[in-house]
């Protein structure tokens, strides 16, 4: 039997990401959190890789899990890694929190052949409605911070992100849009920029 029955199921956005990662690939996980994705890819798909993390508690969890984690601030680029040294660079929910998302995207595709990126959609209808009706910076389950203490300094919509990819000449290989419970629904597929809360993109150069 392959599956470890005591293991808790993978978060659904990570489930989608892992399905896009080929067996045995080299992975770099930017802002790897507690290392759930890397641990899963290591044990289920024989992937090798490193996680970059800056938060002490998350880093400690990775060490306890036996994940290769490197303390590093993503705002300093990816200088630990040489050009084309990994297959896939993953970054979940961190794009909007870095100082220069555009430069980091360049870095991701310098180091990796592909990049998988997830971020919250600022064009989500509830966010739009919140701003329109209250006239205040939107707060929600996905965006739980005040405007002055939020780590999310570069919010964007799906359309913004796709424009960035277009400007950079990147190809979008896969795109999935989910709600805050990471569920995919038909209506979201039809009007992603309005109804999707979280985007998952797979891009390459």
């Amino acid at each position: 039997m392959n599956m470890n029955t005591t293991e808790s199921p993978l978060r659904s956005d990570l489930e989608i990401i892992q399905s896009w990662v080929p067996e045995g690939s080299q992975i770099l996980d930017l802002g790897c959190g507690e290392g759930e994705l890397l641990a899963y890819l290591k044990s289920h798909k024989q992937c090798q890789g490193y996680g970059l993390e800056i938060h002490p508690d998350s880093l400690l969890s990775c060490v306890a899990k036996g994940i290769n984690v490197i303390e590093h601030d993503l705002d300093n680029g990816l200088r630990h890694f040489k050009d084309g040294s990994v297959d896939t660079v993953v970054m979940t929910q961190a794009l909007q929190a870095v100082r220069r998302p555009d430069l980091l995207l360049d870095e991701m595709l310098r180091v990796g052949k592909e990049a998988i990126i997830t971020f919250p959609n600022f064009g989500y209808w509830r966010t739009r409605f919140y701003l329109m009706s209250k006239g205040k910076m939107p707060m929600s389950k996905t965006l739980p911070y005040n405007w002055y203490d939020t780590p999310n300094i570069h919010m964007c919509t799906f359309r913004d992100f796709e424009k960035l990819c277009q400007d950079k000449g990147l190809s979008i290989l896969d795109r999935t849009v989910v709600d805050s419970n990471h569920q995919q629904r038909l209506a979201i597929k039809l009007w992603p920029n309005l109804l999707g809360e979280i985007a998952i993109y797979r891009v390459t150069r």
Partner: protein
Amino acid sequence: MPKDIPSDSVGIVTPQLAQFNEPLTLRSGKVLNNYELVYETYGTLNAEKSNAVLICHALSGHHHAAGFHSEEDKKPGWWDSCIGPGKVIDTNVFFVVCLNNLGGCHGSTGPTSINPDTGEAWGGEFPMVRVRDWVESQARLADYLGIETFAAVIGGSLGGMQALRWSIQYPDRLKYCAVIASAPKLSAQNIAFNEVARSAIMKDPEFHDGFYLKHNTLPKSGLMQARMLAHLTYLSDDGMGEKFGRELQTEEIQYDFKPEFQVESYLHYQGEKFSTTFDANTYLLMTKALDYFDPAQYYENDLAKCLSHAQCKFFVVSFTSDWRFSPERSEEIVDALVEADKDVTYACIESEKGHDAFLIPIPRYIQLFRAYMQRVARELAL
């Protein structure tokens, strides 16, 4: 066990002496026909001999890493904060070996030992030893103790260089390697500091080309200067500011050149203590071993190529205020390990304690180090 020895201490320990009669050819080409190594062990070697951990000491360190030599001992071994039952390097799990390196002055063969060719102390004639020579002698000690493979080789500073050297010199004899507050080689500034220290010792009129024992004297003043200087490089500006500030020893300034500020008297105290307990020739040798360390130089100065020979997993730690071996120096090691596709975990610990931080039980450092050692034990099924 005496009541004032804490329960998480390894307790009273007795140093052991191992005699080696197989000649050791040093990197310099010189040969030591026979030599002794003094060492201590803590914990129990398991039946599979799979739980041994080697601790490599730094410049002024020695074999006494944990526990007490007697009930009257005021201070425990130099890394007692990390070694003991239930501690980071848990002696309930691991069998810990720590030795005094060749050329040392705490019981292993070194400049104060008798040179069999002359019947007198080696003094200034003791051959230069390099990090690889230490690793070679440590491997022979492992053979002597029946240890084929170390679960981990661990060291801070110059000790970290030995651990790193182990990973390429005996790649199949260690499973994990912890390199703490270290560097893949010294910078020009590091070498310069060492040279000022050596110069202070060698210019001392009592040095006598290293044969001071023959003259019944010690180059105390030179060694004291050397230590005061080195000690400065182990601390940070913020750390010293916090510890001493501009506090005076007396109520008011005295308009003389005696130590007035508390930081001055601290340095004098440290220097003086060291100058009577440490051997000047050993100090010279240790600083030279540091200067010469540069394993990548034999691999076209490509550290990744050099470390590609390693088979173990690595744990690398640095400290923010360490300017002797700054975080960037540790990151050079990390970058090379990543390039060589090695397993590596790296953390940079926030601390104002400077280079000395690696010996201080800083909570985050201890937590991570403990989690890593628990991983080692788990993955090796200890």
